[in-house]
């Protein structure tokens, strides 16, 4: 094998092998330009001084052919002065017998912009150039990203819909307002409704939250939920309907004394302090109840409203107590 033997290539062969080459003569004028580079420049670059045509960014600027040739083999970053927006990669080698230098370029990361702006086609790339594969990948990836985005959007909408339809309060696992509304409506729609409704509101909860923090508040709410759950029968419903508000529905209940007893027992159990992070959290509760049997035609709105009146009566009497609704609680005791 003969090392470093000089070979001759026709201009056409050079164009096919390196469609982005630039051959500069010893005088520093451009002798030959690859067809793809000519297409990108959109003008004939032959005969022009090399440094009027290219701008070398890295590794350092060179203004003479000698300076440029001293960078032989290094990775060059350069652009055409007529397209400063397209940064190319390049390599320069000196030609034998002092006939100048040959610069070979590639589109580097400017490939997409160059292809878009200059209308390059498959023919403008050597089969050995992977730019076309890059373009393919870029387009395929964009399509896949679109599909993934669509899937994420659909899942997001589904999650929102599911949350809207959810019947459980996520913190306490109790029924939420929506579940309670549905259960209450169902209970009032039977021919002879017999059930009790209790509206319970925590006292001093805000103080716990403010002094010990939200985590303590959440702990108290979970604890309250456990107590309420443990005090009801399996067919009854306990729902968290607001920050520290709960509604309990007692099926087959027509006994005012029973409701009073449940109310008193709930309040006394809620008053037992629970420990969070070594600190006792003390709360109590006020409650108001109403029985469906006292109405000819009980409606959810009416019953909730009357239980509310009873609850306010408990609050006005100094909190920490239970009140059963009756007509004489109306007007005079309601705040404002």
């Amino acid at each position, binding site marked *: 094998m003969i090392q470093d033997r000089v070979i001759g290539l026709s201009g056409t062969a050079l164009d096919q092998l390196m469609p982005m080459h630039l051959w500069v003569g010893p005088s520093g004028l451009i002798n030959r330009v690859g067809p793809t580079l000519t297409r990108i420049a959109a003008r004939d670059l032959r005969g022009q001084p090399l440094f009027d045509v290219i701008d070398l960014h890295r590794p350092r600027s060179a203004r003479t052919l000698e300076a440029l040739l001293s960078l032989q083999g290094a990775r060059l970053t350069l652009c055409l002065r007529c397209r400063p927006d397209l940064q190319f990669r390049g390599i320069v080698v000196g030609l034998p017998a002092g006939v100048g230098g040959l610069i070979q370029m590639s589109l580097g990361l400017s490939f997409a912009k160059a292809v878009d702006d200059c209308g390059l*086609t498959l023919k403008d790339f050597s089969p050995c150039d992977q730019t076309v594969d890059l373009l393919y990948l870029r387009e395929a990836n964009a399509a*896949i990203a679109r599909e993934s985005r669509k899937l994420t959007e659909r899942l997001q909408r589904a999650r929102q819909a599911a949350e809207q339809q959810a019947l459980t309060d996520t913190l306490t696992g109790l029924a939420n307002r929506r579940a309670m509304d549905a259960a209450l409506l169902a209970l009032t729609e039977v021919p002879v409704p017999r059930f009790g409704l209790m509206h319970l509101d925590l006292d001093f909860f805000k103080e716990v939250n403010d002094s010990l923090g939200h985590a303590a508040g959440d702990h108290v709410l979970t604890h309250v939920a456990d107590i309420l759950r443990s005090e009801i029968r399996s067919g009854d419903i306990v729902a968290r309907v607001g920050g520290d508000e709960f509604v309990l529905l007692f099926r087959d209940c027509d006994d005012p004394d029973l409701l009073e007893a449940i109310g008193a027992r709930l309040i006394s159990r809620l008053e037992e302090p629970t420990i969070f992070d070594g600190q006792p959290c003390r709360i109590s509760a006020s409650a108001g109840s109403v029985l469906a049997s006292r109405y000819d035609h009980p409606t959810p709105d009416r019953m909730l409203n009357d239980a509310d009146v009873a609850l306010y009566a408990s609050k006005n009497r100094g909190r920490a107590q239970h009140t059963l609704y009756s007509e004489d609680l109306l007007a005079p005791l309601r705040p404002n």
Partner: protein
Amino acid sequence: MHGLVNRALQGFLIDTYGEVTWDEVLSQAALPAGGFESMLHYEDRLTGEVILAASAVLHKDRCTLLEDLGTYLLSHPNQEGLRRLMRFGGDTFFDFLQSLDDLSGRARLALPDLDMPDLTIQHDSHNRFVLSVRWGLPGAGSVFLGALRAMADDYGALAFFEAEEGEDGEERVVIDLVDQSFASGRSFTLGGRVA
């Protein structure tokens, strides 16, 4: 099976025959309403069941149905992205045919978990090619038959295609390329379509 494959089948049935037909296919195949997600994976048998159900609902034999699917994938406006990706294969239909060897590799470059068939293209004689297809589900040869017809139109080439049974479940498409520049074909630019 990758959801993209099932989704392509779903797109074909909806865009060609309408939502009502698609719902009928889903119910006959005992699949949940709504259909497939392109970025999830499904059991292979579901794809087979959809093809079977569609064939029954549309009174079309399996081969014809899958051929139509192949044509749809590369000619329907809703699948323009796929047509573009195929056109990256070559500047002429001749070059494109040669590039089919690379097709599965390219697709896996973009989606490593895509169930691509094993493809081999042989340039038999001056203008005759044989594409061999091997895939998990029978019928991929028919899909390629329809797809290659669409691509020949796309390039403006005149070619004749024939399906052949190979050995061991291999399916073949024989391509006779008569005239590369028979018609003007559809335009394609390398740049342009990335959203």
